[in-house]
């Protein structure tokens, strides 16, 4: 048996284990056994466990990963131990490549070459099935600058056969050319030390482990590997890494519900880490390895410890609870580290470490100073960028809170709209002069309430923005606040959100790699800062409870303030005014077309091949006498639409501030997968769904909260003919969908009676605030 794959597994990770089983069954070589350390019984006799390789299960005492790996080591029988975690996976050639290396000396620490990603096995397999590409790797999940860009080409025998002369090439060289790897031995043995100190993906000779009685630290729950790996390093003479990554390490993008060991929120993380370093360093006798490990640990202290210890630190990891205990531990650890390594640390950091080394005291001021200097250094490096944010952190958040100031932000400062606008207007009318209103705006945005009484408009991320963000007692925001926002005691945060959810949100989203892999964690932290969350209907309450993991008791069951305009008694008069403002003849009826933005229409930065699938020429020809068409598209494509050819039939109002006003003037809505119809249905006017790509959209629709076939208050139309037919016969459509419309309204718009803003204001503000 060539390899023994060692996989520790917790009962909660069983589904991952089955994924790994599938992955291992695809390996190009099957000359291995799989040893699973798991404390719940597996039915290995079941047919789906009949695999071309042997599978053994072992149980272990306790719950730590270290204990699990130790138990598996005992049961392994292969020549080489391969450490694969249950959430990770291998490329099909991983073990075959390693097996092909000849000679692979027993005193080698071999590595399958880790490739970090946030893409789980299921999603990677799905993309491979769609379009199989041999050299495909999942989306890179590490630091951008570290991404491996090149694939080394392993030559085949035919290439080697095209040498022109008969030179004798050593078999080891020929083998290397066909199965390339990098080797660190001799002088460069301790290069890539960080990489060598990661257990997953390592291939280690079993005899060596057995002879030297090497084990993992079963008592350290978080860092069991250091002691084992440092001893393996001490007993090996070379580090060999395959030239191309073959071990895919999956990082977890939902640390809230499914944290990896490294993401666990543990208050004594630093204590456990230092304890593991201490044990490891004590046991190292080789001076060069001692120096290398000292360097490694000191760099980690220098890089990460101070932020965790600094006053008011906002480090992502759990802050240290028992500071004196940790300092004592550090004091003892620092007695062991090499002087030479300490001398290489930068001056300020060395000063701190030396102080702790001499005496177990906590140099608070020096640590705060180094953290502040680093923050300042970052701003200087970016030529002043971030100076306002730094001022926010350092000074503005220490200034007194202004009890009568309200800060508003709608769609990240893109416009003056949505529920914050409704709340603002209501307060201005009902409580004039009671508050100072501050609106956040992006540069160049028009339509902001500049010049209104008691109102100022501030530039997003500017100085005044930072000042008011820190000092305003009330914040009314419809998307998310910045990640670095500090919720100060005494302030109140109203999250109005911006729509009834149609597509799966945050924690309901599949575990796929998104733009920011830590989106779920960040969202969770941000939403904990919200004092109230406005909801439009019971459906939203239910969804937000699981999608945002937000407590129901903090939700305001009020309806959306922005929709009050749609139920206002003077809505017809307002509609006439808006029509006049837009230059639309009063006698024309209005079709509002609001399609969603499709990801696949986008192909490259700055370019959108968005084309309107709605046949506007035909619409104009057949309905032009009675109707005009108002277009409302995603702001990404607003600038790319050319509607000049359609004369006065088409009004492109994609950049119009307030979509509610467009609802008010329109007589019929055509949309598709956009959530605009929830609000529009308040008006009880006909809604048509032009879903020309319904079949293609299937995979996306599976991520919807609604069943598009059953739950909608209007017809699904797939062709322009269908749309025209429906428009020609709107009374019939209304009649056909009357029952569905009534059910829909009851489900989604039962709370929209035109007084949502009042309910929100009364709940959010205390009576004393309004006096």
């Amino acid at each position, binding site marked *: 048996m060539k390899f023994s794959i060692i996989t520790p597994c917790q009962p909660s990770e069983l589904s991952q284990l089955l994924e790994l089983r599938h992955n291992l069954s695809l390996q190009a070589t099957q000359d291995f056994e799989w040893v699973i350390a798991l404390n719940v019984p597996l039915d290995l006799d079941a047919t789906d466990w009949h695999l071309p390789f042997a599978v053994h299960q072992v149980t272990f005492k306790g719950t730590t990963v270290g204990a699990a790996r130790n138990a598996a080591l005992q049961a392994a029988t292969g020549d080489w131990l391969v450490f694969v975690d249950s959430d990770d996976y291998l490329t099909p050639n991983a073990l075959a490549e390693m097996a092909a290396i000849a000679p692979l000396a027993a005193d080698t620490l071999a590595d399958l070459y880790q490739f970090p990603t946030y893409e789980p096995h299921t999603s990677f397999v799905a993309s491979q099935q769609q379009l199989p*590409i*041999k*050299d495909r790797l999942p989306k890179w999940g590490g630091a951008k600058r570290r991404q491996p*860009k*090149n*694939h*080394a*080409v*392993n*030559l*085949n025998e*035919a*290439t*080697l*056969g*095209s*040498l*022109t*002369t008969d*030179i004798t*090439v*050593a078999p*080891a*060289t020929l083998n*290397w*050319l066909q199965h*390339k*790897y*990098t*080797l660190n*031995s001799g002088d*460069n043995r301790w290069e890539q030390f960080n990489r060598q100190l990661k257990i997953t993906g390592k291939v280690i000779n079993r005899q060596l482990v057995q002879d030297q009685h090497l084990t993992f630290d079963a008592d350290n729950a978080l860092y069991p590997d250091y002691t084992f790996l440092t001893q393996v390093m001490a007993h090996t003479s070379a580090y060999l890494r395959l*030239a191309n990554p073959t071990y895919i390490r999956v990082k977890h993008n939902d640390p809230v519900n499914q944290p990896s060991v490294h993401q666990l929120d543990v208050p004594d993380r630093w204590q456990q880490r230092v304890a593991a370093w201490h044990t490891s360093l004590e046991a190292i006798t080789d001076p060069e390895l001692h120096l290398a490990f000292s360097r490694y640990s000191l760099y980690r202290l220098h890089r990460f410890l101070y932020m965790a210890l600094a006053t008011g630190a906002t480090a992502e990891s759990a802050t240290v609870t028992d500071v004196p205990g940790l300092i004592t531990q550090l004091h003892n650890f620092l007695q062991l580290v090499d002087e030479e390594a300490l001398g290489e640390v930068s001056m300020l950091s060395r000063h701190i470490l030396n102080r702790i080394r001499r005496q177990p005291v906590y140099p608070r001021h020096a640590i705060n100073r180094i953290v502040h200097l680093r923050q300042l250094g970052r701003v200087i490096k970016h030529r002043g960028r971030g100076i306002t944010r730094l001022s926010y952190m350092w000074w503005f958040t220490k200034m007194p809170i202004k009890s009568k100031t309200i800060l508003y932000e709608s769609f990240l400062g893109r416009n003056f709209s949505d529920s914050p606008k409704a709340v603002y207007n209501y307060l201005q009318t009902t409580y004039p002069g009671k508050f100072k209103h501050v609106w956040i705006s992006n540069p160049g945005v028009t339509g902001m309430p500049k010049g209104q009484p008691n109102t100022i408009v501030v530039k997003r991320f500017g100085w005044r923005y930072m000042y008011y963000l820190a000092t305003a007692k009330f914040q009314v925001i419809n998307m998310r606040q910045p990640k670095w926002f500090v919720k100060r005691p005494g302030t109140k945060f109203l999250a109005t959100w911006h729509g009834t959810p149609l597509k799966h949100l945050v924690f309901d989203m599949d575990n796929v790699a998104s733009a920011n892999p830590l989106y779920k964690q960040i969202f969770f932290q941000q939403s904990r800062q919200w004092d109230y969350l406005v909801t439009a209907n019971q459906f939203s309450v239910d969804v937000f409870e699981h999608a945002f993991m937000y407590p129901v008791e903090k939700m305001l069951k009020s309806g959306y303030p922005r929709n009050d305009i749609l139920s206002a008694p003077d809505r017809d008069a307002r509609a006439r005014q808006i029509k006049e403002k837009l230059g639309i003849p009063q006698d024309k009826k209005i079709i509002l077309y609001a399609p969603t933005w499709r990801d696949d229409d986008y192909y*490259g*930065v*700055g*370019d959108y091949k968005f084309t309107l699938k709605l046949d506007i020429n035909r619409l104009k020809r057949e309905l032009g006498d009675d109707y005009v068409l108002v277009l409302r598209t995603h702001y990404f494509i607003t600038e790319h639409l050319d509607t000049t050819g359609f004369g006065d039939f088409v009004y492109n109002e994609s950049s119009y501030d307030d979509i509610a006003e467009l609802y008010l003037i329109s007589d019929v809505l055509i949309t598709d997968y956009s959530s605009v119809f929830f609000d529009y249905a308040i008006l009880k006017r006909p809604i048509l769904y032009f879903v020309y790509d319904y079949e293609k959209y299937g995979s996306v629709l599976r991520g919807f909260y609604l069943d598009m076939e059953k739950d909608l208050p209007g017809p699904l139309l797939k062709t322009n003919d269908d749309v025209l037919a429906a428009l020609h016969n709107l009374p019939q459509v209304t009649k056909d969908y009357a029952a569905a419309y009534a059910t829909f309204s009851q489900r989604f718009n039962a709370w929209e009676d035109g007084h949502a803003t009042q309910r929100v204001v009364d709940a959010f503000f205390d009576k004393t605030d309004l006096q």
Partner: protein
Amino acid sequence: MHVFINVVPQTKLDWACLSTLVGELTSQHFAAASINLQLPAGQALTTAQQQQATEWGLTVNQSPVTPAPLNYVINLRENDHILPGALQQWAQVITNHPGSPISLAAFDLQQSLDDQIMAYVADHQESALQQTYRQLVTETIDDPDERLLTLWSLQSYSVQTNLQNVRLMTQRIRPTGILLPTELLTSTLPLVSAAQAFAILRQATDIVRLHVPTLQRAMWAEATPIAWLDELEAIDPAQLDVMWQPVYADYFQRQLNAILTAAGHKQLSKPAHTALLARIKQLTTRPTHHWSRLGLLQLLSPRVAHQLFY
């Protein structure tokens, strides 16, 4: 998989060069390749040459193989050289990443191959792969095969998605020396043209770059500046998508500058150089960089510019 090697002479066919190239190709014993000679208009092979061509298995004026994901075309000049093992290396990249155009690194035809290999190896001595290789072999690299092995030890490729990178377009738009996937060929464009390579680049989702040279060839802008200008002029920017127009305009200006620099190396006759300057001056659209040759040409007459640049 099939690689269709299309040999296109620049002007008059140099039979000796063709013999060398065909020898280099056939000695690689790569079965999945066919060689075709595309003769310039008005030229024909002699009977002896025809007979020789048949012996080599060389077709004349044939069109490429049928479009398939693993079928590729590469255009070459008859005076280009193929390094040993090249076809096998291309084949490996094609198998690993089918359907994408493959841009090939190349050595220059004007300089000694051995010197270039030595310089290349010296440039990459810090590479972890080469360091490992050096641990395995102790010999110096005096022998041509040793040099070749060292080159192979470094061989790697990358899959690049930054298709609109202007700096890299120089290695991606070339009439010769790029492996073109047959599925992306545009039948209305000449097979051997910058326009064809550019059309493929625009359709592709990514492009593969084979980093270690497998070819030795001449730079178009340097060897044949006038022909290169013709090639560039054949691309009509007005027909491009909105996203490609500014990218191409930038690339075009850079290429004009490159031509101006290369043409100053006295390969062209004086009248030809002045005529080229006049042509470029007419083609240039502002804004140009003031301190580039192109910027200066805007301020001067072609004759004065000729005095200055030549």
